[in-house]
């Protein structure tokens, strides 16, 4: 498909009742927002990322998807930051509880990366896989249409190859695009994808075009230099819950919650009752929360994790270790957002190296394997 076909794709999705959301430039970053036409896409822009730094930069070409990942993730659509769970009104016959109808909105996600497909798979397991299905997530997820886009470049913060989540989009999409100088190579993943693809100005790709797409995708894989050694990582972390390095990290960590907010798999939330002044109407709201917020573990008069080191340890051990016990996979997809968007540039891959390097007999007396404080549940 030629680049112009992208406009047809956006229109076809909109005509089918989807609200198309995808990458757009706002607040000096590529964020996810409403896409009405290709004019909303960050054409000709890229992002430069390193620990604690993100900058937009002009590209030399006019690529539509020539960036990596930004501060937003698709979870803001599937698991909104603030949700009305229920409301209650005091009437003549006492309290009347109401549960809002699930949002009828149909999203089409344009530009989902391989690591983000993996993150959606993980959140599917969290919100849909257990005995309690989350109705908000289910309503939005079941109707969502996913247009994946293969990465053709990587940031220094990327490490999807270590987490086996990318950079190639293998499954979990309705359509997948690879952008090259020829235009877009399209792969169809589902029947719904086939229906949309039939409306697009496409023809079978020739071997040269397929080769170009292969080279473009390989370029992303080749650019990934960051590694996270996952070999035996669960046990390394869980056997070192009293490692002095947690305190070292706490000297730098701000416990500001940024890493968990930008993480595409972090799913913690709090629920609170919001009454109006009359006391006759109450809204029950769910909002994103974080293990880095001391209030989040507040129980019986004080926070359970009342130190930065215990909160960082909770986050990392859950993400990289006990997530396996709870959901059967790592909670990390290697997108690197927590590294880029940490205001002081804390890099979890480096912290894991430090924990590994100093793990050994000299520390055996410090690590008892089942120290208190780290739990599987958030």
């Amino acid at each position, binding site marked *: 498909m030629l680049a112009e076909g992208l406009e047809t794709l956006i229109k076809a999705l909109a005509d089918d009742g989807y609200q198309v959301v995808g990458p757009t430039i*706002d607040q*000096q970053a590529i964020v996810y927002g409403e896409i009405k036409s290709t004019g909303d896409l960050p054409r000709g822009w890229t992002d430069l990322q390193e620990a604690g730094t993100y900058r937009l930069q002009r590209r030399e070409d006019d690529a539509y998807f020539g960036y990596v990942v930004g501060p937003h993730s698709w979870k803001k659509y599937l698991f909104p930051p603030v949700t009305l769970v229920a409301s209650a009104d005091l009437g003549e016959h006492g309290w009347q509880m109401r549960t809002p109808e699930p949002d009828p909105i149909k999203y089409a996600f344009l530009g989902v990366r391989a690591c983000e497909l993996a993150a959606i798979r993980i959140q599917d397991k969290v919100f849909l896989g257990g005995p309690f299905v989350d109705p908000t997530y289910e309503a939005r997820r079941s109707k969502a249409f996913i247009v994946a886009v293969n990465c053709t470049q990587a940031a220094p913060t990327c490490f999807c190859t270590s987490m086996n989540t990318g950079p190639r989009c293998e499954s979990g999409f309705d359509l997948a695009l690879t952008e090259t100088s020829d235009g877009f190579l399209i792969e169809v993943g589902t029947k719904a994808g086939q229906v949309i693809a039939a409306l697009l100005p496409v023809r079978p790709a020739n071997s040269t075009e397929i080769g170009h797409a292969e080279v473009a995708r390989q370029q992303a894989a080749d650019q990934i230099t960051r590694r996270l050694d996952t070999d035996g990582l669960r046990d390394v972390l869980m056997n070192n819950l009293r490692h002095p390095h947690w305190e070292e990290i706490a*000297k730098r960590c701000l416990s500001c919650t940024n890493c968990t907010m930008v993480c595409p798999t972090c799913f913690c939330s709090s629920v609170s009752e919001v009454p109006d002044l009359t006391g006759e109407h109450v809204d029950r709201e769910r909002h994103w929360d974080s293990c880095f917020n001391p209030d989040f573990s507040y129980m019986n008069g004080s926070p359970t994790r009342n130190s930065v080191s215990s909160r960082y340890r909770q986050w990392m051990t859950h993400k990289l270790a006990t997530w396996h016990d709870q959901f059967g996979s790592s909670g990390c997809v290697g997108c690197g957002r927590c590294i880029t968007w940490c205001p002081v540039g804390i890099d979890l891959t480096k912290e894991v190296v430090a924990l590994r390097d100093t793990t050994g007999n000299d520390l055996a007396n410090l690590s008892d394997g089942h120290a208190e404080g780290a739990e599987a549940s958030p």
Partner: protein
Amino acid sequence: MSKPLFASESAGSNDTAATTTRRPRPRLAVFKFASCDGCQLSLLDCENELLAVAEAVEIAWFPEASSRLQPGPYDIALVEGSITTPHDAQRILDVRRSARIVVTIGACATAGGIQSLKNWADHEDYLRCVYARPEYISTLASSTPIADHIKVDYELRGCPISRHQLLDVIGALVKGQRPRLPSHSVCLDCKRKGTVCVEVAQGIPCLGPVTHSGCGAICPTYDRGCYGCFGPVSQSNCLSLTDQYLSMGTSTETLLPLLRNFNAAAPEFRDASNRIEAIAKRTETSPEVPHE
């Protein structure tokens, strides 16, 4: 705080229609100490909700709003301002004695306010500069928060406070509930709103990571850094954040006033600004490049 202020109607009220018409409302008082009045004006600023507030509580003492002043005791005292005179240090004790629940409102009351900048100066010197007859003035050498003088039940941060939070707190106290006063960092609010981090994406020094929630993350939403007007978050790591800004090339001239403003005397910001000042002095006295 589980007991409603006024859960039931007055004794014998179920007998006649006349006595059931109105149940007593909690009595609210607003007191001012050293401050600009902006926080108590937030209450008058609740235009759409003002009638509901007046329904929910009896406004018994609010000189800013009414000359009809009624003596205590009060159920809720909103206290604005810091303690800067010996007279006020006595008066706040009376306020505590007259009120069941004391809620301090604003950066002056919770941290000492912008006037706590005098804590770094010689106040006698200031008196001589400002007043023709300084001997008429009786002030303390420092500006201190209310909680340094009396037990405070709830603190509302900010310069000024958020009126939504004020309404929330009044609403909860009237119903005998514990008010919701989230104490996370401003960053969490930015992220919930989808606001992109101004520090990471633009290199703007922002105190959001060490600043208490409550403002709704206004400044970063308008592309500027947080200047900490809600004061430090608990367990804030100002050392790490300011080190990061120094390493990014932010000057001590930028960092010092960022930390030393409305919440200058809050211990975490105070210690951080003292450190920045010491670094600035060191650099001044031993410049890296000697002058020719």
